[in-house]
């Protein structure tokens, strides 16, 4: 099979009679229909269909598109859920009977059901499995949800007459159903994408929304834990069950993170410690009763999905630890003390690893409050203003306190707020979705750059007081334009490099991409330098201002108040430039590396030019399609690209000497990058205390370190690869080396996926 169209999920209303009867409790045999209840219409169908042409389409009013297609899935083993085979023990499993002859057996069964149920939740959410194949495979969940329709307002669903089931397991089940309501609410916000982030099809069993009273369930869980911890149960092997119930108890509080913006992580800590404990002490020999986990719900409920085999959860509670840790990290954003810390949190939250989908959703709902407030600290205008101030507008004429400035900037503020919050949302997506969203916003940043520049040009002509420079010497540097340009540049770089991470680029495309990144990074450096110039100029002017220029004491106070902020900005700018320089130098290195291989004729950025259907120019333009409309691409035509790239190809006489020079240049690039990475890592480790840079990574220290350490590893690997390549290649370009070698992109563990290794391999 060489490619395949995606199976399209068919959504249709519930229509199965058997499902309705089963839900109403009018039949307890989900294996309906039985053979003797069916009438064989095969002969009628065949007689009628024999008169039809292949192109004929049958349509009736009663049978819409969805019913029609669903009907065509009958008997297809992969699609027809009514044909799922069931064992007798599954068909006759009764949730209202206590399973286990002895008390010990019942404890073991209840513990095993609770344990598997918990692990099924993380199999569903962490491992991206479907809901019916995991949580809904638990008969107690299915039973609980069905019964809730007829018994709204109560959570005492199980009626087995046994305490372990009716009290303990019942409460655990209620906790899960309450949690399902929270997950369903998250899904309705459309923050997470169906299938790629979360697969939640409750098959019309949505009664979990009827569970409103968190406090009642919490109390019952608390009471259950108390009972199980009492002396009466001391010798009854219930320690694991108590631990499990602590997780169930914590589960219902996860919604508090977004409903109450709770910063309390005590119950998340409890999940971690209890899960750690369970990993060590849990008795894995316990098995749930036969039939208690089954595909029966897929067969009997209103099911729009194809057949999904049950996914057996692994024997570990690490999934809970991962979930709790990611949630803790997500809400730690509330501790950010400045917009820099906040933005850097966003930058690194998902940078080196995909975070748990729930934690990503919680983060977005947690930071952006219903009243429009950001992490409970900043309103819209204040948020945008602070971001600008931490970058370039401190002590400039861009002062929102000035009515004229504010009036002219109010629309810009709105647009910038939208752009920044979209950027936050884009980065919080899964990595594949993130790149796509980032790409589709490049044009927006380009528009904002134009918009800010237009407003700044207008403001420049107005009689506005520049807070420091009365002669407006520095004002022509356009602080807002520079901010939006810097955002645009970093977005383009991020978008381009993430293509490597997702392995979108083939080896022959590397040169164009790395050269492009180095080019944008050079532009970015110029922008950052200009900002640095403004900041330094402002800082120095304040320092140099003498008493005769300061008319009042108030002025002195105001001017001096700018100094700490300017000093912070300058340190932050140093970090941004160092970060940008690392990406630039490594991209230059990669371009040279490709250039060497191209010089030997082993690889070519236009190597598809001989193919019959291919235009290299069209391929190039398709690759850069998202950037159409930006200023760069107007200048960077395909022809211009080729001209620039050819500068990296060595040819003509004195090949070896030229090659040596290039190699030296490449080593210098790596050395430069290494210095900057080390300084950034040093600053992160020191928490930006007594360092030359301000990284703003206090809240995401591990995540930021992980990113820069990966870059550091890449620097070493790229250096080693250069040595290997130079040794492998002959001194002169002779013969058709393309017949002997080929190039592959290698992604080594622990290295930065933005800079894969251009590995030279011999053909077999």
């Amino acid at each position, binding site marked *: 099979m*060489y490619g395949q169209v995606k199976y399209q999920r068919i959504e249709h209303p519930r229509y199965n009679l058997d499902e309705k009867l089963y839900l109403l409790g009018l039949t307890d045999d989900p294996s309906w229909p039985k053979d003797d209840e069916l009438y064989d219409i095969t002969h009628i169908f065949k007689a009628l269909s024999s008169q039809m042409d292949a192109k004929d389409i049958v349509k009736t009013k009663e049978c819409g598109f969805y019913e029609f297609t669903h009907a065509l899935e009958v008997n297809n083993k992969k699609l027809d859920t009514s044909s799922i085979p069931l064992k007798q023990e599954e068909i006759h499993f009764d949730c209202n009977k206590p399973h286990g002859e002895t008390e010990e057996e019942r404890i073991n069964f209840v513990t095993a059901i609770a344990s598997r149920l918990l692990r099924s939740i993380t199999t569903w959410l962490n491992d991206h499995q479907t809901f019916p194949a995991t949580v809904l495979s638990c008969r107690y969940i299915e039973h609980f949800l069905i019964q809730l329709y007829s018994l709204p307002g109560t959570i005492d669903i199980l009626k087995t007459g046994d305490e372990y089931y009716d009290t303990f397991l019942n409460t655990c089940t209620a906790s899960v159903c309450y949690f399902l309501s929270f997950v369903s609410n998250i899904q309705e916000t459309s923050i997470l994408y169906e299938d790629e982030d979360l*697969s939640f099809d409750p098959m019309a069993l949505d009664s979990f929304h009827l569970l409103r009273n968190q406090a009642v369930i919490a109390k019952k869980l608390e009471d259950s834990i108390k009972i199980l911890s009492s002396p009466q149960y001391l010798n009854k092997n219930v320690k694991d069950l108590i631990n499990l119930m602590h997780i169930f108890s914590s589960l219902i509080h996860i919604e508090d993170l977004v409903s109450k913006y709770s910063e309390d992580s005590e119950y998340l800590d409890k999940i971690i410690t209890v899960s750690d404990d369970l990993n060590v002490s849990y008795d894995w020999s316990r098995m749930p009763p036969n039939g208690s986990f089954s595909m029966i719900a897929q067969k009997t409920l209103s099911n729009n999905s194809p057949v999904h085999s049950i996914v057996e959860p692994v024997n570990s509670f690490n999934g809970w630890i991962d979930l709790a840790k990611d949630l803790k990290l997500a809400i730690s954003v509330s501790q950010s003390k400045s917009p820099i810390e906040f933005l850097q949190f966003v930058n690194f939250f998902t940078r080196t690893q995909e975070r748990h989908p729930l934690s990503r959703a919680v983060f977005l709902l947690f930071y952006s409050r219903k009243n429009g407030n950001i992490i409970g600290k900043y309103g819209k205008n204040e948020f945008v203003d602070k971001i600008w101030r931490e970058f370039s507008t401190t002590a400039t004429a861009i002062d929102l306190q000035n009515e004229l400035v504010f009036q002219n900037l109010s629309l810009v503020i709105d647009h910038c707020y939208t752009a920044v919050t979209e950027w936050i949302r884009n980065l919080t997506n899964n990595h594949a979705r993130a790149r796509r969203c980032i790409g589709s916003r490049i044009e927006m940043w380009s528009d904002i750059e134009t918009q800010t520049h237009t407003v700044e040009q207008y403001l420049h002509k107005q009689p506005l007081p520049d807070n420091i420079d009365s002669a407006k010497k520095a004002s022509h540097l356009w602080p807002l334009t520079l901010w939006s340009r810097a955002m645009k540049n970093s977005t383009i770089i991020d978008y381009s490099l993430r293509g490597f991470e997702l392995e979108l680029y083939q080896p022959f495309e590397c040169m164009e991409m790395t050269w492009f990144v180095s080019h944008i990074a050079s532009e970015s450096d110029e922008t950052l330098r200009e900002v640095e110039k403004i900041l330094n100029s402002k800082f120095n002017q304040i320092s140099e201002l003498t008493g005769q220029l300061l008319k009042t004491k108030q002025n002195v106070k105001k001017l001096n108040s700018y100094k700490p902020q300017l000093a912070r900005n300058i340190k932050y700018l140093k970090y941004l430039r160092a970060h940008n320089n690392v990406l630039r130098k490594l991209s230059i290195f990669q371009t040279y590396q490709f250039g060497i291989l191209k010089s030997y004729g082993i690889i070519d950025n236009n190597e598809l030019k001989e193919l019959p259907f291919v235009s290299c120019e069209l391929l190039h333009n398709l690759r850069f399609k998202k950037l159409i409309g930006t200023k760069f691409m107007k200048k960077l035509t395909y022809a211009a690209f080729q001209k620039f790239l050819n500068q990296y190809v060595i040819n003509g006489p004195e090949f070896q000497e030229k090659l040596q020079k290039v190699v030296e240049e490449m080593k210098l690039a790596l050395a430069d990058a290494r210095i900057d990475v080390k300084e950034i890592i040093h600053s992160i480790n020191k928490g930006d205390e007594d360092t030359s840079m301000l990284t703003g990574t206090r809240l995401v220290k591990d995540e930021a370190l992980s990113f820069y350490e990966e870059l550091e590893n890449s620097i070493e690997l790229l250096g080693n690869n250069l040595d290997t390549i130079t040794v492998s290649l002959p001194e002169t370009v002779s013969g058709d080396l393309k017949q002997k070698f080929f190039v592959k992109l290698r992604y080594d563990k622990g290295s930065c996926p933005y800079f894969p290794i251009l590995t030279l391999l011999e053909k077999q």
Partner: protein
Amino acid sequence: MKITYRALDLNNDVQLNKVKQLIDADLSEPYSIYVYRYFLNQWPELALLAFDIESEDKETPIGCIISKSECHAAARERGYIGMLAVDHKYRRMGIAKNLAKLAIVKMKTGGCDEIMLETEVDNFAALNLYESLGFIRVKRMYKYYLNHGDAYRLILPLTEKAVQKSYILNEELR
């Protein structure tokens, strides 16, 4: 063995059933007859089959490609390769590549501006095949298939329209 290629005969049930067998044999996505009919009834000329005319069963297809072509975003004609499969016994003979080439030619002459397809990220045979024909990966899609596998979307641009943003093309049309 001698391989020939021709379009599917929509009224030939043997061909249709064999096509289903070939595709169902080793693909992860489950398709109902509706999916096949959707493609074949609307774009029969873009369903091409390979036959081994020197075999005993020379009327039974040993490979197939199923495609379609329609207007995308009111801006360009987009060809789409839905399925491509070759019988195990006939693998590594260039039959899949020939089928793909024939489909591309058909779509190109039919006025397509680009050709798109999706394939699993770890289906290296498919990726090698399409990339050797000039397709490039334009996006990765997480958990795209029912087996939770990621997919790459690949595109082969055929005209300038393929590399223009849809809204720009639409503005030009107005």
